[in-house]
């Protein structure tokens, strides 16, 4: 007797990737880099940070919420990126449904740790918005 093929009746939601490019601040204060649409949550996928002109190595905090720094709310941390001189770096890529997720209406923030560069860096954020 042939084995019946199992087919789930659950339909997967479409994956609508969004990408934004923003410029970093040039101080060590918290910077809101992404705000979800009203009533939505940010599901983080990946962020890349690029240094355009040679300026040395810098560390950059990435976290949810609008706290002044990453250690204020350790459970909202996403990553700390080390940007090399004249280089680029990125977080890892999270698979569908597996990335850190913010609260409803919660922003994504970045902050230079220790010293800030004098030139803005390019930030590329990949994410999806969820209800």
């Amino acid at each position, binding site marked *: 007797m042939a084995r019946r093929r199992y087919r789930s009746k659950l339909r997967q939601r*479409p*994956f609508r*990737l*969004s*990408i*934004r*490019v*923003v410029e970093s601040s040039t101080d060590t204060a918290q910077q809101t880099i992404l705000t979800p649409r009203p009533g939505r949550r940010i599901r983080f996928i*990946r962020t*890349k940070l*690029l240094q*355009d*002109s040679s300026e040395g190595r810098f560390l950059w905090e990435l976290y949810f919420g609008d706290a002044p720094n990453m250690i204020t709310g350790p459970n909202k941390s996403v990553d700390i990126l080390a940007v090399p001189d*004249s*280089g*680029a770096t990125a977080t890892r*890529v999270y*698979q*569908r449904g597996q990335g850190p997720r913010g609260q409803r209406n919660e922003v994504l923030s970045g902050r230079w740790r220790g010293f800030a560069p004098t030139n803005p860096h*390019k930030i*590329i954020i990949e994410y999806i918005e969820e209800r």
Partner: protein
Amino acid sequence: MIQEQTDGRHLWELYLGTGVDITTDPAKAIAILDIPNDGEAATRTFLRDEGPRGERDEVLSGRWLGTPPTTVHKIIIEYTEES
């Protein structure tokens, strides 16, 4: 993106549409590639149905950010077309 002849480090914007640069419509951004001297760079690979998708008839654009190179670079694009 591949740099064939020594030409220094350059940044290259990749986005959908015909905006003059990647910041014209931030919602159409795809990536900024950092091409090292005598080197190459690539975007990440997107899984099936998870990559950025353009509108119907919308083009894919590239642009040198800041200083362009003096020699041409090779661009290899992998994509699917959807109806």
